[in-house]
């Protein structure tokens, strides 16, 4: 799929602020199933942009506006080509043991900082285990949206899994955090993915849709066969499916905090109003829709 992404963020401060430093993680990554062909960022007020690649391999754009200003607009445009990811391997649980998997899993198998104890997750942990790791992944895709309502405004960016459990509702970020814990407890390495999702249906013919940045996950599934290399498989519990060509990945990390789309600090005691919108436009003719 070919997409055009327009991500516009606008801050308005009720008093002038200074030394506004920001880090953006908004550029679609280039992976085996995705390629970013064009990418532009425009800033108002203007500022020089530095690029660097962070520890997890995500491209970060850094800039700062030193002088006093009362608004900041970040205008991001990208053109990206995606393809269907390969078929997810169906391998038995035993393939999780052994050095090949452990090495590929690295730190994504390690418990996080502030995770709920086993007690809080007990019943979920019991149910969550299925016949194979892949089956577990698919099962979680259903289990979590079944058990928890998708409701914005109940949690916020700093919420923990305990908050989600207590509220019984949350947004994509919370669903993913919970899924990560459950997968890891079963010995499946998993990482948090930030990106864009083209969420329109094929059949109603819309080519362009307003979205938000989206969160899903990638689980490391063991390969089949003797030398089957484990591969990272994307899954989207919010939308009950594995990731496909409508998912445009920006980057990954252990949790949301490792890949926030925008992170910034400014100097001043003003309040800030944020408006953000993402418009994704499919550029292919709707040939694929016609079956």
């Amino acid at each position, binding site marked *: 799929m070919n997409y055009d992404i327009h991500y516009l963020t606008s801050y308005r401060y009720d008093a002038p602020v200074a030394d506004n430093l920001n880090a953006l993680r908004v550029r679609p990554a280039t992976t085996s199933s995705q390629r970013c062909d064009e990418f532009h960022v425009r800033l108002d007020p203007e500022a020089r942009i*530095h690029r660097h690649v962070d520890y997890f391999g995500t491209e970060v754009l850094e800039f*700062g506006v030193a002088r006093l200003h009362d608004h900041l607009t970040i205008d991001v445009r990208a053109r990206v080509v995606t393809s269907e990811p390969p078929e997810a391997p169906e391998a038995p649980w035993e393939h999780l043991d052994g050095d090949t998997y452990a090495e590929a899993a690295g*730190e994504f198998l390690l418990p996080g900082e502030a995770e709920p104890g086993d007690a809080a997750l007990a019943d979920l942990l019991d149910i969550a285990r299925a016949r194979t790791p892949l089956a577990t992944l698919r099962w979680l895709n259903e289990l979590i949206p079944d058990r928890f309502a998708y409701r914005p405004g109940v949690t916020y960016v700093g919420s923990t899994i305990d908050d989600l459990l207590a509220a019984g509702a949350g947004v994509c970020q919370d669903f993913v955090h919970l899924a990560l814990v459950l997968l890891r407890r079963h010995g499946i390495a998993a990482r948090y993915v930030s990106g864009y999702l083209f969420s329109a249906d094929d059949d109603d013919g819309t080519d362009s849709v307003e979205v938000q940045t989206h969160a899903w996950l990638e689980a490391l599934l063991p390969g089949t066969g003797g030398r089957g290399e484990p591969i990272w498989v994307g899954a989207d519990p919010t939308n009950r499916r594995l990731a496909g060509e409508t998912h445009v990945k920006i980057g990954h990390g252990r949790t949301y905090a490792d890949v926030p789309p925008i992170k910034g600090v400014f100097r001043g005691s003003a309040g800030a109003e944020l408006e953000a919108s993402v418009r994704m436009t499919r550029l292919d003719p709707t040939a694929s829709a016609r079956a």
Partner: protein
Amino acid sequence: MSTLSHLVTDDAAAYRPHPGCYDEVFGPDGAPRAHAVALAAEIARLGPQLLTAAGHRRDAIFVQQGITFDATGEDGPVKDRPFPLDLVPRILPAAEWDHIERGLMQRIRALNRFIDDVYHEREIVRAGIVPWRLVVSRSHFARAAHGVRPPGGVYCHVAGCDLVRDADGSWKVLEDNVRTPSGISYVLENRVAMTRLVPQFFQHHRVRPVDHYPQLLLAGLRSVAPSAEDEATVVVWTPGPMNSAYFEHAFLARQMGVELVEASDLVVRDDVLYMRTTAGLRRVHAVYRRLDDDFVDPLEFRADSLLGVPGLVRAYRAGTVAIANALGTGVADDKAVYHYVPEMIRFYLGEEPVLDNVPTYIMADERQREAALARRGELVFKPTGESGGKGVFIGPTTPAEALDGLADVIRAQPEKWIAQEVVNLSTVPTAMPDGSLAPRHVDLRPFAVFGEQIRIVPGGLTRVALREGSMIVNSSQGGGSKDTWVLEEDAGAGAATHHTQLHDVVPTTMPGLRYGGDWQDQQQQQQQQQRHEGSGPC
């Protein structure tokens, strides 16, 4: 031959070293060791009353000068207590210090290489010596510092490794501190206080001075700064006066003649660090920071840190500012990583360790864990990411139920714990409130500066557990300190007070001193002349 030890106590009972420990002054027969004979005699000569009186003067001076710290007393936190300095110094003969110094230099070099390796090629991981899982699970592993190499490849500009002396007299490393080790200010102030309060103790010894530390630190910071050396602007960055080590931050800034800054004084523009001065923004080339990585930059670490400077990590990455100690050194500060240091020395330096570790067990390893928990009444358990003696459980002195609870905690999060064999720390005679001496357990924290080379201040901070039998030496938990003397050479008792090649020079070109005006003299003269001449009206 216990006459001397008899003199130092008020009653007839002689000073008794604890059995099973090494006393550094008195041997098991009660006679002072060779290097301590002169000191023991001086203390005896001074007597318990004058020793106590000197102690009172010390407290008054420290309170006056603000050499204090905050502690936790029985009823909660206590502020501004005079820093406890025991007036009996601890002596290290030159040969012993040589051994310690060699061992520390080797260790610091190895740790420095480890830190560089862990944030770049990971060779020691690929060689299968240190598991990657261990490294990456350390709470102080700084992903933001990954791939960045500071000038000269130096990360631990200031290192304070804690040493202890076992019952057989051998030195062992208890733990490595390469994040923000503190205590050097007390070392310097203690020495000054000793020369003022008990100068007679110095009589028969040639004690190596320690007051060049601030110069060493400043030179070290300048040598890593990205600018011409004499133009480098260096600052000491403190979290502020509320921090328990604030005295030391201010002290070092003053001694080095550099600004003491807080986060609000600093700003990053275009990846360059500046401080706000009355003459506008002034560029900062090197920062000696006394706060943990977590608080240093809200854009890269804890977002809620008000103590940090946004963009500092960017400037660091861009190489426009040097940070001491470098970001990410905490990965080597960890007690579980400590277990691997002897292997690091072999791997990076190809040498055998000069100083041994205390035998340590990693709780993350199941076999070691179960073996250790089976002996939990005999071992010491420490959380890997803490410092200052916090969270430590000493098996032999902890009730069984508490140890059972601890076992559960450890099994739940084994990555966060280690166990160590108990070391019977050595003892040094310490002044009691009545002026008598009694043995108390000590450890040693020497301070090293790594700039162009590694320089270690002779001695360091000797910490004393003031409570009888206790081995907790941290000042925040009731510990005290001693001045540590490294002698210049293995002189026997009674080294001469005069030095070789005394040179008596009377500069002849100097004008003589005058003592008063000659007004009276002049007036006197005139009168005399008059009388003498005898002429004048009658």
